[in-house]
């Protein structure tokens, strides 16, 4: 069984939907370590021109867990998400999904998305020229192959599901509005709605309340707590009030590795955390 170390950093991206046939299985020893985890990140290093964005990062997310990740700028939060979603290939280390059953370092973005990992970008990224409904329709979990997409017809049950999601994200009355005309907060919600349509097992959210009003932030917190009941969620956030509101386990990243882990009160009182992050 080849080790992850031998995978070239710039391995050619695989076409979507073919990757399932690829060798993405993991040795039994590793799989045992990864039991009960939805995401198992161990000893991951990513270097850009000598700068180590991630340095032997290890992170274990349990099934159904809601986890918040904080850290100063450049701590490696976004790079960590890039590695998990296949945008960046690690130089070293293991990234395993679903009780260690799948090695994510061998798959491309589309294949990883189809496995059930959804990602929200820091800057809200929706399709501005499509309507709210069409944005959600594209995200709907269906056969992603070209011919199936060309001949796709929306079923009544699927249309209902899209309508339900529109209600959940508070955009029920903006069905036919172009996404480009939505407010910043509404775009953030639309993107979260799109992630829900994908029916992911694991959601990665990069600063979901950035630029939101207090009222919107509170609504988002409730939405996330609701979502986290059915799936695993990782939230990267700067807003301490929001992190406290989520009330989940907190991981503090610093210079590409884990500095501290625990409840919000625990990490806020940790001397090293205060020094690098909170104390500044």
């Amino acid at each position: 069984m080849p080790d992850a170390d031998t995978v070239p950093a710039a391995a050619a991206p695989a076409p979507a939907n073919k990757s399932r046939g690829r060798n993405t299985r993991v040795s039994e020893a590793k799989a045992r370590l990864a039991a009960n985890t939805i995401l198992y990140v161990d000893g991951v290093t990513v270097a850009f021109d000598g700068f180590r964005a991630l340095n032997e990062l290890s992170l274990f997310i349990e099934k159904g867990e809601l986890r918040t990740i904080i850290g100063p700028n450049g701590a490696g939060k976004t790079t960590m998400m890039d590695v998990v979603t296949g945008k960046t290939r690690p130089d070293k280390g293991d990234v395993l999904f679903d009780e260690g059953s799948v090695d994510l370092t061998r798959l491309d973005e589309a294949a990883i998305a189809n496995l059930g990992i959804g990602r929200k970008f820091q800057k809200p990224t929706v399709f501005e020229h499509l309507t709210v409904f069409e944005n959600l329709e594209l995200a709907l979990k269906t056969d992603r192959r070209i011919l199936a997409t060309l001949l796709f017809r929306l079923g009544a049950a699927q249309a209902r599901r899209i309508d339900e999601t529109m209600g959940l994200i508070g955009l029920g009355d903006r069905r036919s509005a172009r996404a480009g005309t939505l407010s910043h907060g509404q775009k953030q919600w639309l993107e979260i709605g799109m992630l829900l349509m994908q029916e992911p097992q694991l959601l990665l959210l990069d600063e979901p309340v950035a630029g939101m009003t207090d009222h919107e932030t509170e609504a988002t917190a409730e939405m996330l707590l609701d979502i986290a009941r059915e799936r695993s969620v990782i939230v990267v956030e700067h807003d301490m009030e929001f992190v406290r509101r989520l009330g989940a386990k907190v991981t503090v990243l610093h210079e590409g590795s884990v500095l501290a882990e625990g409840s919000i009160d625990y990490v806020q009182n940790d001397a090293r955390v205060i020094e690098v992050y909170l104390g500044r």
Partner: protein
Amino acid sequence: MTRLFRIQSKAGWAAFVVIFGIALVAVPWLNLMIPVDSPYHLPDYMVSLLGKYLCYALLALSLDLVWGYAGALSLGHGAFFALGGYCMGMHLMRQIGTRGVYGNADLPDFMVFLNWKELPWYWFGFDHFAFAMVMVVLVPGVLAFVFGWFAFRSRITGVYFSIITQAMLFAFMLAFFRNEMGFGGNNGLTDFKDLLGYDLHDQSTRVGLYVASVVLLACGFLIGRFISSSKLGRVLVAIRDAESRVRFLGYSVTNAKLFAFTISAVLAGLAGALYVPQVGIINPSEFSPANSIEVAVWVAVGGRGTLFGAILGAFAINGAKSYFTGAAPEIWLFFLGALFIGVTLLMPKGILGLASGLAARLKRPPAATPQQETALVAGREHA
């Protein structure tokens, strides 16, 4: 089957039937049935001219499919057009038989002139019309598939994609200028006699080619509508808006673009194949970069991402070109340049965008929505 009828609105179908119906019936009727001395008679040269415009319109439509929808501006579409044209030209050369200047049944004139003794292997099969038609589809299609596969897989986008397609086009032009290539070099292929037994100089044959061009353009338009109205069409627009988001949704951006690019190249090749018998010549100047850039101008002027706009733009600009090159040839290029600058600055969504904007303003006069204006500007950034 119902899916076919829903590719456009009822009004869209009505406009489609009226426009293509008039093009299909009125032009041949005015040309063939109305006496020559009548003021309503359509002169013969106009039929050929309109047939040429129809081929240009299909070429513009094919570019709109990749540029207007998937956001990949190909500046090499002239290559697919010209290759389709060359495939047809090779068939027409083989149809000449012993009627050439040298009367050689085995070799086209230019090969006799170059002292070639036998037909190159890649000319085999072009005696047969069916084989030539298969090549018209396959050559541009396979080229686009292979080229696109490398380009899209390597995630070449935006201006870089435009540059490499232009480079490909330029390479083809240099290659086809060489006599050793066996495609007639500088002079290209010309002096055609007949197609499927019909004399190309007969007016009835020309009208037949014109009708074939109308039908082909209509089919191309419907194929484009079928794709753009499907979920795949929305995936293409989504790729234009936010390519990486599409990837994280689980779609293969490479495959979606490859599909659009290949279909587009096939349509461009078919356009070229019908163009050649109507103008009577195909030479390497069809590969010239300026020609392909002009196609992008047609699409931009008509309105990107609408399909119909591409057709409109091709007719408007080529009509203006025919008029100005006759009336005031020295100002034509200045006019074209000014037009492109004007369209880019003043109406980023082209003639169609301007028209629909005016229609919307007439419906509800107050509040000329600033949001839409910014959306227009934002839309231009995808170019």
